[in-house]
């Protein structure tokens, strides 16, 4: 008997209009190897289920699905997603951290447009497995300087850049998504460095700049966590599209 592949999901949200083309449903995988200080989904960090407390009552966040079960859930609406220019986005947390499960779910959804929304941090095999199955990759690029990357996300960015390079090999189109965190990622130096890296990528579709949202810390108390951004939240982010325009890259501000 084969072992069932299971995965842990912290939310399934429909009509996620910022997660790719058309009408989409996004599966948020629970657990992330990074610890970005600005993370607005703290319930996506820990792999284990946890209780969130709010004035509306407690609820347990994190549900274990069998691949077939999640595949069936999405299949029930697949025709709606397909006929509305959309599909399914796997986000997180970090889908690469549960690549086997995600791949199995995708294989149950033939014909459905797939976006994998990833930090790029993960093993090469995991990345290849998901990028190969995706119609479009949303690839986060945060901080180019390796030391600063480690400081703000807790991890080295070498695997990220290695995986980024694999996209060309796979011929997979991708959107580079850059969170504009005040004083951290939005510096002219960092944006120019990102532009330089992605400009050489033949499958780049465009760059999305995502200005930092003050509501990022909102869910930490409910998770029993403390939000420690470590940067000045009050400073408006430097929404500068010029480094990308100069490199001839299509750029949008979300």
């Amino acid at each position, binding site marked *: 008997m084969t072992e069932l592949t299971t995965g842990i999901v912290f939310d399934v949200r429909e009509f996620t209009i910022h997660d790719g083309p058309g009408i989409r449903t996004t599966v948020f995988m629970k657990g992330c190897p990074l610890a970005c200080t600005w993370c607005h989904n703290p319930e996506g960090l820990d792999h284990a289920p946890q209780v969130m407390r709010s004035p509306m009552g407690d609820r347990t966040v994190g549900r274990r699905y069998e691949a077939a079960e999640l595949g069936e859930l999405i299949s029930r*609406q697949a025709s*709606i997603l397909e006929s509305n220019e959309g599909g399914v986005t796997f986000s997180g947390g970090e889908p690469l951290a549960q690549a086997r499960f995600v791949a199995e779910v995708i294989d149950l959804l033939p014909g459905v447009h797939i976006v994998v929304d990833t930090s790029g941090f993960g093993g090469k095999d995991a990345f290849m497995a998901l990028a190969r199955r995706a119609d479009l990759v949303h690839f986060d690029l945060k901080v180019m300087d390796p030391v600063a990357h480690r400081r703000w996300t807790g991890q080295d960015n070498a695997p990220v850049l290695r995986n980024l390079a694999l996209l060309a090999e796979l011929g997979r189109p991708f959107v580079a998504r850059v969170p504009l965190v005040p004083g951290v990622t939005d510096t002219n130096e960092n944006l120019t460095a990102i532009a330089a890296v992605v400009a050489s990528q033949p499958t780049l579709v465009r760059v999305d700049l995502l200005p930092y949202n003050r509501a990022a810390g909102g869910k930490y108390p409910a998770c029993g966590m403390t939000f420690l951004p470590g940067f000045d939240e009050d400073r408006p982010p430097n929404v500068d599209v010029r480094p990308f325009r100069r490199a001839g890259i299509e750029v949008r501000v979300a």
Partner: protein
Amino acid sequence: MNERLEGLRARTRDGHYRRYRQPGGPDLVAECNHERLSWPRRMARLTRRMCEAERVVIESDELIVFTRTLTTVPPVYSAGDEAALTVGRTLHEGGLINNVCADWGMALGQGLLGRRRVARETRDRMASTGHATVIEFLDAAVETIDAVLALSARYATEARRLGKVDVASVLERVPAEPPRTFHEALQALRMLHAVVWLSGHHHVGLGRLDQYLWPYLGADLAAGTLDTAAAEELLAEFFIALNRDSDLYPGIQQGDNGQTITLGGLTRDGRAAENPLTWMALRVARDVGLIDPKVNLRITGETELALLELASDLTRKGLGFPQYANDDVVIPALAAHGYALEDARDYTVAACWEFIIPGRGMDVVNIGAVSFPAAADVAVREGLAEGATFQAILARTGAETGRQVHERTAPYERLLWAPAPYYSALMTGALEAGVDHGQGARYRNLGIHGAAAASAADALGAVRRHVFELADVDPAELLAALDADFVGHGALRRRLADESPRVGLNESAADNLMRLLYDQLADACEAETPRSGAIVRPGTGSAMYYLWLARGRDGGPLAEPVVGATADGRRRGDPFGANLAPTPGTHLRGPISVLQSYAAIDYRRVCNGGPITLELSDSVFRDGESIRKVALLVRTFARLGCQQLQLNALNAERLLDAKAHPENHRDLIVRVWGWSGYFCELAPEYQDHVISRHLYADV
């Protein structure tokens, strides 16, 4: 919106026009008693005296005039005489016909002089046959027509005196004669409509405005006498004017006044009815941004996406409209309930969501509610106490629904409408037949709300899952927990609430139960034949019952049963979802599954309307691309075969701030149950419910 319109709008919102208001009104009882007038003649006298007592108000920048100055509509009988006259009869919401729609196209097209000629011809025809009631009705109708003509003449005279030649020349033509231009048509409509309010009627709908006004606009545009910008300005002024007196219009809450319009759809002979005025009305409603008129848009699964995008741009304004009705579903449902196909195609939406036929309908679309949670609660309690099977519990739920339908319907065997000579003159065929609309209208059916179906289906689903399938809940403990409002049974409550099928998640276990509830309601309505030829129309709305059925009614009696704690884990007093909405607190995935759940209902059997209510965060409406996605969502609603949809765009933080600091949010508009109102004018319990809906939507 140019400077003139901005000025008109600002003066409307800041209460400027209240300075013209007159305290009190004409005293009619003594006069009517002295002259020993009959009831129809008294009602005509009311319209006449109100018109006579109205002060003429024309402000220097107005092109479409009439401002109401009388604040109250006086009685025509003493309280004692009225009680004696109506003893043993049921007066629906005061007894004046309401929540219907005139045949505005006909009334405009004939002009009031034309209507008077019809009345006279019918009178001549009937005079020899000695139909005293017919003669009296027609004479009363003529008296009201003459009153409106006299009021319009006074407005014309004043406009002439003020040197407002354009306004004067319009009023010298309409509403007496048929309009020749779009401007004249709007002015005529303003006058005819305002006098319906002045005669004491309420929820006065405006119907298929794009249909009956398009001939005038189309002709002006074709002749080159009006351009689109000038036409939009006139329409905007008309829309603003609808908000000028609306604080005087009665409803359950401020804003619940039924000044609705219905756009698009099909013509009576089945052709696509959408025209350039359909688009213009959506644009103008968006730009004016006031709560009246409340816009309904008739669509199908094939409606052009660009129209839905324009409509979604109106939703973005946060007014809570347009509300969508799906012709693919509504027309067959009306036809299946005895409406002639050409009338079914001609439907408009009443004050909230009910489908009615302009000029031909005198349906009482809201005789009350069936509480599905109460029906299920009785069945669950009695069934579990007796050790009944789950099938037996379902059957008992149906019987209980039938009992409630019968209770609500029975008083309407004795329905009595006050004579309505003026409103009747605007209806199809009333003057032609010499019969008041209250007695002679083609469709005089009753509508009933099947309320809070999601909570009842959730409760039944929880019982099936935990008592019958898993057997992990002991029936005796469940009954004890319900009696104790779950105090001391917290773990059981969580299991029922969190580990049971719920409506809104596209789970057949819950959705099929909901469908069954509506089938049972339809069965019960079919079993009732309250008056000859009338039927009971089952619907899916809730009106204010989503609170009343959970908490009782503050300061008033309530015929419907109020339920305590329910088997879905809901505690006593917790509100139900409004209309077709999942139970508050359900952890939803989003609108796709909600629409799929509600597609389970057999809408052919429920023709009284009642929208699926979806809340979207206003961040969804950020740009053209996301507006397009909202339009795709609306099209999905239609393609899934759902019946009616209300989409609300709001920001939970803004609502919370408005509750704390109303002075900063005077203009904040929200959809309440079937209508939109200013948030700060709502009673606190309605404010809280709106806030909770949006909090859940944002989680």
